[in-house]
């Protein structure tokens, strides 16, 4: 079983968070293992097993049970690291050298495109799908995990 944590925290402006991976459906369609989606109420359901609003302790338990996990740059990548359970993190505008953990597989398509200021609100950064890696690249790493 693998866990996906598809979404970063929603922005107050209701705009799409620039850290949200845009190709989840395409990626999921190519994964043959069981998938559990974790997230919160209001997020789009991508797989049949969507577990919402789980307490941290239950998320930790799931992490221990899964083969690996895939997440955008959200709290979940830190939780996986904290549980000594490496996973795949999909980056775009935030800097994995600052916010990531080398124990994870950090997939950043183009380092020159990360936001110039990493410490402002993401409200002011536009979401751009072409900043993310393609699903096929993730699958290569997923099969190695």
């Amino acid at each position: 079983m693998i866990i996906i944590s598809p979404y970063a925290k929603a922005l107050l402006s209701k705009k799409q968070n620039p850290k949200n991976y845009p190709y989840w459906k395409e990626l999921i369609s190519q994964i043959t293992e069981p998938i559990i989606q974790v997230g919160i109420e209001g997020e789009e359901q991508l797989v049949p097993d969507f577990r919402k609003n789980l307490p941290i302790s239950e998320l930790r338990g799931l992490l221990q049970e899964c083969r690996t996990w895939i997440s955008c740059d959200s709290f979940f990548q830190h939780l996986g690291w904290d549980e000594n359970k490496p996973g795949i993190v999909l980056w775009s505008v935030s800097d994995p050298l600052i916010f990531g953990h080398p124990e994870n597989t950090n997939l950043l398509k183009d380092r020159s495109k990360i936001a110039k200021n990493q410490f402002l609100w993401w409200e002011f950064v536009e979401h751009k799908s072409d900043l993310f890696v393609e699903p096929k690249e993730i699958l290569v790493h997923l099969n190695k995990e």
Partner: protein
Amino acid sequence: MPSVLCSVATRGRYHTTLPLVLSAIMNQTRKVDKLIIYDDNDEPKDVRQEYLYKHFFQMLDIKGVAWEWLFAQKKGQHHIHQMANMRGFDWVWRVDDDAIPESNVLENLLKYAKDDVGAVGGSVLTPPQNEKNNATGTIDRIDSEPNIQWGQIDGVKEVEHLHCTFLYRSGVHDYNLGLSRVAHREETLFTFGLHQKGYKILVVPNAVTWHLKNPEGGIRSETKQEMFEHDEQIFRNVLRFRADTIVVLNCGLGDHIVFSHVLPSIRNPVVFSCYPEIVPGGSIAEAQHLFGDIYQYNIYARMDGWKWKDSLESAFRKMYT
């Protein structure tokens, strides 16, 4: 040779004591590498075409001293000092706009600026005062003794806080930006913070600055009692928790998880947290009550100020250990 920035915060003293101060800085036996005047006047002027200042700036150019005149944000001198603190020099020599250093002050302060030293101050005398006092310069006696710098200093002495004007190691400790515009106790909090980080704070002889205490103008020319009370409360709470490291996690869930790996390295942590299930502690509202504005604890603002390139975990370590 270490680089030295001289910072002067000024308000309401364009044509009284400020020119005297700038002249004294220019005529130091050890030249500063840069002089920045932070203009915090309510109605700031461009003084470059004024006779006095025009020649003063030309003299600085002739002497090869870089200078800048910056218009400050009117948020108080602690914000100004923090800007100077982050300019990337090895040391910052802060001089008040009515404090006139004798010509050897910087040279003599720098003699004591060793690797284990955080700040060095000399005497700060207001005429006719010229006597030695028996103060200890310890924080515990701050309410019961005069400031040690208010008297002649006849030997090097380790203290716990400094006042008014001094030389300090830059970029290792931040000014408390939670204070009001009056910034009451700002230099005491700053130098005591350096002391708490393990740096020596020294008072040294042969470094006399004459503090004219010009009754007109001044960076602290605020009279609102509530500002002083607000700052005094923060100061007292800092003293109350001085054996502890105050941690305020006004940040996200993931940040708390990362921070939890730093927590074991922190000396006597007293934590205020948004996610007590990750990092147990008091509430953010409680921290605000105790220490005023808690923006100073915003790890993202701090990383921005530091132009941070390293990991979030390292940033927390820099902030709290």
